[in-house]
């Protein structure tokens, strides 16, 4: 195959380089294999710029979605052929770090601050580096809103309103690391119980929970649903591609860093290091301003080159700094949050929607009237929807969390409790609660 031929050529180049040891310091040679989840718009731009700077290096971008990329690196670790992992969600890097599949690297470029918003840019232990950030926001289809006569949403709280019933879409945190950060940020900002209540109030308006994070902009672009909760570059690049969509950052938004790391036993570790330095260099950071890539650079100096409407998290304190994000807390309860979201929302979306609809109808019937008994029933119905199977203390508890992330390497490791068993109990409770809420709300409505 062509690839095989190229490998042979690559090998020849490497051996040629070995013979001519007296090459100048910059002239790197050989290959660089990057496992990445980024779209071609991003990868081709960086590949071309990097290859231009280091003409001897051939970059190969191996595109896999984040979860497939992790599995790929885990399974091929014994005979590794990849050099770098390049993706958004820091938790993906945490998983790889936990499996001892990354190596530490010390960046030479100067001028990168420690934090963007309230988020630390780099892994404190030095394994992975942030090179850009992105903010979460709301995206909508202008034709859709116009046809259905819906107002333009501006804030997260708007999405709870009954007018958006059946018009909102979002991805699940277990499917998309960036979505997970958004969910976690609200939980930390509002508190555990209130945060979940907030999410369920928004989710009651969901048309769908998409399997991929890109499914959300895709659905809004084609008009399957009108409003989506998305990361900024999805919304803005869709708009740049000509779709009748728009995007807004709500006043409280979360910043999500995007990362890169060198894989352990990388065959071309030297080129990998050069790639990190390039990403963080002036030229690399400026590439991020390209409208098709459009991420927020981590080097504050780069914003001088940005267009005037480009948000600058280093100047504008409303972006991503409202919530003091506790990375350790997030890491501790990572899988529990994912699992709770799936049990309460993703898998029971029909039941949740039915309960929400009943409550919204009852509240609409209630408008302008006073009926204490009905009001009490509605409040009870809300409380039944809002109830969360476990408390924040339980969710953050180490022993409980182990059930959700046990990876028994040795038979001697022992943990008690089974995830399936616990999820089953949660599911029974959630299902019963939603049914109860629906019943109460319908009863309230019949009294009005």
């Amino acid at each position, binding site marked *: 195959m062509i690839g095989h031929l190229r490998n042979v050529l690559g090998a020849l180049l490497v051996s040629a380089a070995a013979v001519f040891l007296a090459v100048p310091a910059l002239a790197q040679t050989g290959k660089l294999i990057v496992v990445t989840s980024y779209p071609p718009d991003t990868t081709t731009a960086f590949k071309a710029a990097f290859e231009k700077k280091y003409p001897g290096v051939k970059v190969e971008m191996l595109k896999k979605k984040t979860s497939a990329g992790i599995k790929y690196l885990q399974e091929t670790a014994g005979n590794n052929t990849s050099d770098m992992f390049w993706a958004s969600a820091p938790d993906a890097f945490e998983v790889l770090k936990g499996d001892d599949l990354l190596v530490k690297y010390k960046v030479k470029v100067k001028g990168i601050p420690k934090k963007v918003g309230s988020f630390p840019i780099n892994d404190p232990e030095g394994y992975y580096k942030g090179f850009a950030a992105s903010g979460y926001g709301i995206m909508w289809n202008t034709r859709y809103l116009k046809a259905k006569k819906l107002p333009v949403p501006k804030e997260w709280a708007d999405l709870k309103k009954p007018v958006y019933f059946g018009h909102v879409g979002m991805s699940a945190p277990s499917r998309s690391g960036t979505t997970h950060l958004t969910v976690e940020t609200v939980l930390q900002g509002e508190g555990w119980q209130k945060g979940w209540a907030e999410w369920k109030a928004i989710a009651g308006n969901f048309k769908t929970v998409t399997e991929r994070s890109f499914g959300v902009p895709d659905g809004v672009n084609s008009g399957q649903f009108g409003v989506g909760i998305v990361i900024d570059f999805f919304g803005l690049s869709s708009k740049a591609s000509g779709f009748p969509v728009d995007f807004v950052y709500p006043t409280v938004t979360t910043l999500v860093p995007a990362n890169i790391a060198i894989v352990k036993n990388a065959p071309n570790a030297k080129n990998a290091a050069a790639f990190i330095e390039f990403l963080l260099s002036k030229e690399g950071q400026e590439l991020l301003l390209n409208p098709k890539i459009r991420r927020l650079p981590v080097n504050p100096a780069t914003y001088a080159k940005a267009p005037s409407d480009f948000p600058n998290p280093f100047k504008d304190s409303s972006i991503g700094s409202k919530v003091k994000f506790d990375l350790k807390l997030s890491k501790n309860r990572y899988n529990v949050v994912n699992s709770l979201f799936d049990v309460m929302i993703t898998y029971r979306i029909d039941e949740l929607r039915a309960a929400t609809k009943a409550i919204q109808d009852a509240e609409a019937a209630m408008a302008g009237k006073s009926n204490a008994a009905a009001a009490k029933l509605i409040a009870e119905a809300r409380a039944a929807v809002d109830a969360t199977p476990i408390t924040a203390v339980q969710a953050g508890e180490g022993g409980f969390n182990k059930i959700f992330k046990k990876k028994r390497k040795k038979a001697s490791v022992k943990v008690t409790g089974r995830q399936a068993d616990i999820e*089953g109990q949660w599911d029974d409770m959630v299902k019963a609660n939603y049914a109860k809420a629906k019943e109460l709300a319908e009863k309230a409505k019949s009294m009005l």
Partner: protein
Amino acid sequence: MAGIAIAIFLLAFLIFPVLKVIYVAFQDPDTGALTLVNFSDFFSASLFRESFYNSFYVASVSVVFATLFAVPLAYFTTRFNFSGSVLIQTLGIVPLIMPPFVGAVAMKLLFGTNGSINLLLDEWFGINIPFMEGLNGVILVESIHYFPFILINLSAALNNIDRAMEESAQNLGSRGMRLFRRIVFPLAMPGYVAGAALVFIKVFDDLGTPLLLDVNKMLAPQAYLRISSIGISDPMGYVISVILIAFSLFALWTSMLAMRGKDYSTLQKGGGGLAKRDLRSWEKVGCYAVVIFILLLVLSPHVGLLLLSFGTIWSYSVLPDAYTLAHYTQMLASSGQFITNTLLYAGLAALFDVVIGTAIAYIVWRTKLPSRQWLDYMATAALAVPGVVIGIGYLRTFNDVNLPFVDGPVASWWFVIVIALAIRRLPYALRACVAAIQQVSVMLEEAAENLGATKRRTVWRITVPLMTGGILAGFITSFATASVELSATIMLVARESDAPLAFGIYEFMQSASGRGAGAALGVIAVVIVTLATYVSHRIIERGKQQQQSSGNVVREEA
């Protein structure tokens, strides 16, 4: 000998890698000891029981719809003088080639709540039909997507029936529906059952369609979501995989049971006896109306795909805003090798499949080897193994294996993708080959042997030629479906230069600007596979005519 070789092949490339992944299902998550506790968790969870019911419901209803689509097309084109038969047969295969992601996008743009059809209905009548909501959407897409399994196998079977049977029935006064119900359909039963079993099992195990329609409460998506979620190592995903495999084998066994004790073989093959019948003109109009309606319906995803690839922006409107060729230039600039890779991989995989499929069919139906049925069961089990499980299993099994002529570990060699595709598509070819051999009367082979032909010569000169139609049907289904496979390949592609078409579509579909280009690549995939199918249909037709004319010469000489 061949039996042992195939058994070893299946063990090495299917059973062993899959076991390496799913043994977790039988492990106590607390202690690591062998246990069945995970299975009791499965049956006690109401979410899983509902998922099981949904999967069963969707699979059964899809078989019904697929039958309604396939039977008229197969019957009209094989029994009557019907111009455009080859074209109809070819177009009938096209739905099998539904490129990942873009196919679902196209369906949603046409049939979704705010798709073209519903926008029109809303404008004209103020109604909205939930074609694509929840399980409805899965049933619609699956039955359109997989009905060709029935069409192909049923057509092959109809062509194989001795026409003298029908002729006798007609002479005795049987006509129309009665003739079809009492004579033709029962004789074609092996082909129909092979196709229907495939549809049922495939829909039951299918992952891509429900996921793309964001339906989670079915078994295969539940398994996938658990296996592929970041950082989750819950054994339930593997438990569900085991249940999928077991249930699929059960369905297959049931279908075999239904066929047992009946002899469907006829001595005379196709061609002989009565020629194709003529239709009266009003009958013809009716038949064409039915055929055109079915074709329009089953080809609608591809019409949508075509519009998507030429349209500029298509958003909340009946048709795209304007048309352009830009997506094709964007796609052609980067996708040349995807196309050649796909032809190579899918072609090789389909070739392996028919060779192995014929061998298994022969061993199971013509030899007395002990436990020979298990070859069939093993190969068919591949249907139920999620692609991602095969992908991970291969990485686990072959990553530490190095071959002298391969650069890097075997798991990252492109040929592994071919093997994965061959294993995943083997059941399709196998069902077609089994149906073909069931219709060949063993008496023909015995006659050849009595005349002094060796076993090998008999297989080569008698059995295989008589099975040609079925073998070709198997090749086409394997090839067409392998060319758009994604779930196993996405795990196994180790170099961009080795990536097949589906991978390229996936790449395009990751960005808003790539939707049109992805659709364009999908269109190319459909066109290539359709052409390949058309050419092979022509080859069979010509082969048949030659056989017939040589047969006539012999008869005249006699």
